[in-house]
């Protein structure tokens, strides 16, 4: 029973990382109908920046904050420079451009910091925390708290601020928003900035667990895809719920089902993606889109 509780909490911890990255994907998908295949690599790259800042002597939480600022600026710049020119191109073009970003970021990280795995300092205490007689890893609890806090702040921003409202309007009704004086292009760029920030949080939270290496996010992004698809790729709430559910399910499957073990966890995520897309493409929380002929 104790072990099950620990496994569930540890699943929620990885799940909240999937949820963060899935939310980053959903933010961009809602605004532009683009799936950003480079989202995981952007998160990896910003995590390296955080590591570099720590190496330069910054305390971990300060490095964390500085990295989020850099991630935001980087995300905005990427949208302006790379995505904007192809925004109206066909789907294949956009997919390939984001894959180009994927390859470029992966290569840049390898170039700057090498392919040797680095350890990343954990910002949380290492001794377990006792809750009801069960020892939980402080790291897991910390990851859950920080991720959910980030997701909460993003929700508040979108629901309660004027800028958040403008961004939602620009995503849903670009033409009308333009007439109302909203600068739609910049709203989309802000969306990329926010997605980069959420991704950076995910990267920094998972790095102490998986260690830093340029390929650290390649399986995480698949789990994030699975989370976003499970929750409904247009639904931020769905992305978070999908991520948490997937984290727990994958962790329990990997631990208790011998056949799946460590290696077939990715295959399980793939199966979830395909099944959901075939049976209910709008996911758990999405609305069904009806095409007009």
């Amino acid at each position, binding site marked *: 029973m104790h072990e099950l509780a620990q496994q569930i909490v540890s699943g929620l911890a990885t799940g909240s990382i999937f949820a963060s990255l899935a939310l980053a994907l959903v933010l961009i998908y809602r605004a532009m*109908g*683009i*799936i950003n*295949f480079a989202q995981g690599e952007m998160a990896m790259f910003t995590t390296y920046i955080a590591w570099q800042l720590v190496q330069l002597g910054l305390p971990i939480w300060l490095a964390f904050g500085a990295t989020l600022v850099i991630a935001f600026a980087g995300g905005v710049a990427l949208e302006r420079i*790379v995505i904007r*020119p*192809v925004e109206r*191109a066909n*789907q*294949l*073009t956009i*997919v*390939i*451009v984001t*894959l*180009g*970003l*994927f*390859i*470029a*970021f*992966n*290569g*840049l990280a*390898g*170039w700057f910091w090498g392919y040797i795995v680095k350890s990343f300092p954990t910002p949380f205490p290492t001794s377990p925390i006792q809750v009801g007689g069960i020892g939980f890893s402080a790291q897991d609890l910390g990851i859950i708290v920080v991720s959910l806090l980030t997701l909460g702040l993003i929700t508040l921003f979108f629901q309660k601020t004027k800028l958040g409202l403008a961004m939602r309007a620009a995503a849903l009704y670009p033409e009308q928003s333009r007439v109302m004086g909203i600068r739609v292009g910049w709203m989309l760029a802000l969306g990329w900035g926010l997605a980069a920030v959420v991704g950076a949080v995910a990267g920094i939270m998972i790095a102490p667990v998986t260690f830093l290496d340029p390929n650290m996010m*390649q*399986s995480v*992004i*698949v789990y994030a*895809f*699975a989370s976003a*698809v499970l929750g409904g790729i247009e639904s931020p709430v769905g992305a978070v719920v999908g991520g948490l559910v997937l984290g727990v399910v994958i962790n329990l499957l990997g631990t208790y089902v011998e056949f799946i*073990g460590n*290696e*077939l*966890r*990715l*295959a399980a*995520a*793939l199966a979830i*993606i*395909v099944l959901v*897309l*075939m049976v209910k*493409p709008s996911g758990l929380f999405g609305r069904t889109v009806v095409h007009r*002929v």
Partner: protein
Amino acid sequence: MKRTSSGTLLRVALAVAVVAIVPWIVPSFLVFDLVFVAAYAIAILGLVILTGMNGQISLGHGAFMALGGYVVAVLAHGAGWPYWIGVPLAALACGAVGIVIGLVALRLEGVYLALATFSLAVATPSFLKHFKSVTGGFGGLSLNPVTAPPGVPLDAQHWLYYVSWGVAGVCFLLSALLVRGKFGRALRALRDNPIAAVSFGVNPYVYKTLAFAWSAVLAGIAGGFFAIATAYVSPDTFSFALSITLLIGAVLGGIMTFWGALAGGVVIEFLPLVAQQVNAAAPSVVYGVALILVMMFVPDGIVGGLLRLVRTASFPPSAASVAVEQPTRE
């Protein structure tokens, strides 16, 4: 039935002549590289048909290459079957799996298919590692190197070169016969306007699934030659990077024409050398940036861009427009 123009026949004859002569005029280490060019070209041809002509975005064709390579390797390693049986069986296996995945792909529109195949590509090595008893797990399987059959006056490299390019030639020919006429028109119609195509009686299930299966067959053959040429398969041979590399080749070469597949094969075999000259530490940065720039400025790739250049050179727009705008004076 559309007739093949004499220009096309001439270009094909020229290509065949070049392929026949090249191994005798390049340094011998390049002959081995050119075997990989043939394998890449076959696999990219599948992407040209599936993604370029039919609009189904696959980021996971490395998985079919893995299947093809492992069928050849397992048959040769375990049962001692010769390669000339292994490769056709690999093609059959990939065709069968391709039909199944193609049926699934029918339900996944546009970018969702890209997402699912991306995940397939990432998960492939972990499948291969998991079923250790068949695949040899992490360490992979090693094979006997190819030798020319007795009586053929060629060394192993030249023999493999001619076999791989011969097979590539057959693949290109069969594909050309397949996509000319009705089948090709149906594929393009389903890409450009699926609703109109279906209203005109094009059956999307049949054509899209067939396109998927045929591109899987091609990838399987390519994977088989990969295994034979390296005489070794491992999960890392067919990593996620391979799937992406194929797409890079298709896009840089030109995803709309068969010549683009050929150019793409050359590009992905030799671009790493060029990229290393530009930036020795991180050739993949060069790839990534090149990919983005090509999509922004030459979305039809090397072959498409060249074709446009040739056309503008032979019919300069300035001369044409001058001729039209010239006012007639009496």
